[in-house]
């Protein structure tokens, strides 16, 4: 059946009219069925807003689940690899969750709203998996993606702007903590979380008030360099912060057809979020076996020689064997470096063992290729002290 054109169009977020008005480039993309903006004006302008003032990003299409009930904590603790048994109401935890084989289904944030009230935010949809996981647990699981609006305000002036808009005392909120505030005249939940590796917040509120919040924040941020940002600027920021993305840096295991395409948390550099001290969680047995046997892949942050982003490049070892591929790459304006996230086969990449990337680029339509040395970097490319400082610094 062919649906009328009208019904096949991408859905619009509650902020669509505002996004459309601000989107000079008309560059849209589909984010989980919603029209989202790639770039409002220019990527660099938006990127520098994130790093030097603040950027405003519409999170409405992000997948959100509400998990409630007597066993909700036990349920989530079995679902994710991290130990949530002591997570207090008001806290947020970055988590990964795996299938039985210990392969990552997705990563996301878990909000403890109350002893029996939790929220899970993720890139992919997981309702089926979440419902199957509920066997034997007294929980109610409800998808609230379209019932809750979200905005990310990221960058050094973000705290100041939110305070200007009414969020009194926000500077006291430590990272990965959330609390209720009234801001732009709307009551909302504000969490000190984000995808840029900097001081920043995500705010959660009733979609019916979305326009008021958007307008109020832009007004409050008028003198603090706040501007709407699209996915492309955000992508540079998240690669600088060393954050991986489902569907880009790893395949969500439920979508994998070929057996070696999925990745374990260890293979994604997320081993510190696997806690074997808690007794039972999805993938535990497989992950323990992997720990003994050794992983097959390793995720690397690379500093690539030259200035051409190593997008989709193969990674070679000294013996000219292909040992992996780049999954994300960009020029980092802040680090002044050509950076990349790559997945390589073990044992390569343990330290700087002579990896290089074969980078293709075009110059006046003509393809060129360079062999670029890669240096393995241990921490993120961008990691300012203000990210963690509490009270938040005022800019």
């Amino acid at each position, binding site marked *: 059946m062919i649906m009328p054109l009208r019904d096949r169009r991408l859905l619009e977020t509650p902020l669509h009219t505002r996004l459309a008005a601000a989107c000079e480039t008309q560059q849209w993309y589909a984010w989980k069925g919603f029209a989202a903006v790639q770039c409002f004006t220019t990527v660099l302008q938006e990127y520098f807003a994130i790093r030097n003032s603040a950027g405003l990003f519409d999170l409405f299409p992000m997948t959100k689940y509400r998990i409630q009930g007597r066993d909700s904590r*036990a349920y989530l603790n*079995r*679902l994710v690899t991290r130990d949530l048994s002591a997570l207090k109401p008001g806290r947020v935890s970055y988590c990964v969750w795996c*299938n*039985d*084989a210990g392969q990552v289904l997705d990563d996301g944030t878990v909000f403890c709203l109350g002893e029996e009230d939790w929220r899970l935010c993720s890139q992919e949809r997981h309702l089926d*998996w979440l419902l*199957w*996981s509920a*066997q*034997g*647990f007294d929980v109610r699981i409800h998808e609230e993606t379209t019932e809750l609006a979200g905005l990310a305000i990221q960058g050094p002036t973000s705290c100041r702007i939110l305070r200007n808009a009414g969020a009194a005392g926000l500077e006291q909120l430590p990272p990965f903590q959330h609390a209720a505030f009234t801001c732009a005249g709307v009551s909302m939940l504000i969490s000190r979380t984000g995808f840029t590796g900097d001081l920043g917040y995500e705010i959660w509120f009733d979609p019916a008030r979305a326009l008021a919040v958007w307008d109020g924040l832009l007004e409050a941020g008028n003198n603090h360099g706040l501007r709407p940002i699209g996915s492309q600027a955000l992508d540079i920021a998240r690669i600088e912060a060393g954050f991986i993305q489902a569907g880009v840096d790893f395949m969500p295991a439920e979508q994998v057809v070929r*057996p070696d395409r999925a990745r374990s948390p260890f293979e994604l550099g997320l081993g510190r979020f696997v806690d074997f001290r808690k*007794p*039972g969680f*999805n*993938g*535990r*047995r497989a992950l323990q076996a992997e720990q003994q046997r050794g992983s097959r892949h390793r995720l690397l942050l690379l500093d690539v020689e030259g200035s051409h982003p190593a997008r989709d490049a193969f990674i070679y070892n000294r013996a000219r064997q292909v040992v992996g591929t780049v999954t994300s790459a960009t020029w980092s304006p802040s680090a002044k470096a050509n950076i990349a996230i790559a997945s390589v086969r073990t044992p390569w990449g343990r330290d700087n063992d002579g990896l290089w990337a074969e980078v293709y680029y075009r110059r006046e339509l003509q393809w060129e290729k360079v062999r670029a040395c890669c240096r393995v970097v241990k921490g993120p490319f961008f990691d300012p002290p203000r990210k963690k400082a509490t009270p938040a610094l005022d800019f």
Partner: protein
Amino acid sequence: MTERWDAIVIGAGHNGLTCAAYLGRAGRKVLVLERSSTVGGMAGMRRFAEGCSVPGCAHLLYHLNPRVVADLELQSHGLRLAASHLPTVALDENGGHLTLTERSVDGPGISPQQRAVYAAFMDRLRRFAAVLAAAGETRPPRLVSDQWRDYLTLAALGWKVWQLGRDDMRELMRIGAINIFDVLQEEFDNPLLKGALCLDAVLGTHMGPRSPNTVLNFLHRLAGQTGAGVAVADGGMQGVISALERAAVARGVEIRVNTAASRIVTDADGVTGVELASGELLACRMVLSSADPKTTFQRLLGPQVLDTGFNRRIHNLRMRGTAAKLHLALRGAPAFRGLDAAALGGRLLIAPSPDYIELAFDAAKYGAGSEHPAMEITIPTVHTRALAPAGMHVLSAVVQYAPAGLRGGWSADAKAGFMERILTQLARYAPGIREQIVSAELLTPADLEAEYGVTGGHWHHGELALDQFMMLRPVPGAAQYAAPIPGLYLCGAGAHPGGGVSGTPGRNAAQAALAGGLRR
């Protein structure tokens, strides 16, 4: 927790007893827990009327594993066969019965040509069944593995198939993928003969003759019959169970009846013990469960300690029982029209044609009991006189189809209605039978579930189908007897190679557990 057992076996059905005896033989300290007051499970006996006993479910021996008999010295523990190579009588309403043995078929309307086709057909299917039987002897191989042993098992299996020769190999692949109706259609024209063979392919399953996997079930039934054919033990099924019980006890196994396991207790590293309904906690190094996979994983272990994907597979395991059990206490021997009294010791089938069975199955598909049920009837008192007072006989029949999930449930009315349809059908073949009935009992799958603790009252503890077979039985992740929880094993009919009174899952599980070593 004062005592600590090497192994606790849940369930004293024939597989639980077999498993325990093997573990005991290997010097392990073994305790068997049985929820009911007697041992035997679905191969046990049941007193259903004053002075009258019948086999509660299984009434014929098809596939008792000769290795189990030898290893556990069951003969020295009293196992004898009362009858072997029992013929099958395909009953005809008007007395034109057919008699089937392993290689012959006789009766009105059977041409010499059909006789020859039958012998050749059964020979070929027995060759196929032998491959299956060989596969049943060992732990199924893992599909993705880094152990030589899995490849060896696969190779051995491949070799068995290869030995069949090109034509047979092709034929096995071909008929394995179609259904018994189509296969029989190619070979035979006599509806009564085809009906009888069809019933063998669907007994105990939620399948009709035209359903996929019926050839597999037919072969499974044939797989064990190499030695004694269809047989009855001295003392009936009790003879088998008593011998197994003695064999186990002789090897130091302790058996506690009236003792239900309510929970398998684990810690982060695996099994630590079993909790009883009384709250008592028994510590052990490993648990071997002959309860069906759903009971074992969903109720005794609990989905909370298992991974989501595994739970999903267990949840989706198909085990809808459709076989009911009819028990009659009769004044005198039943008289089937045109049937010699001497033939009453055989298997008597009411399955006049493939379509009769298919129609009976249609009802079950839509959640109703068959209007005209099909039956496999035995008269156990012919071989074991002591089962009823002098002058009386007991009749034991498997009746299909009575779906476990009957629409509206198995109320007293629903049961009475189904009973009436059964008796009406029986009386067409044995006209005086109603007047002979002293006492009658019908066990629907719901009753079997309550009585034997088997989900859906299913014959095989889980449908026997290609997707729930060998390395997929009961589900991937538990198909080599070892469950995902260290120290827990499946040892009942739900494990490879499936149901029927064979002892094979019990034996294989014990071997897997012994090879896996005792934990901690």
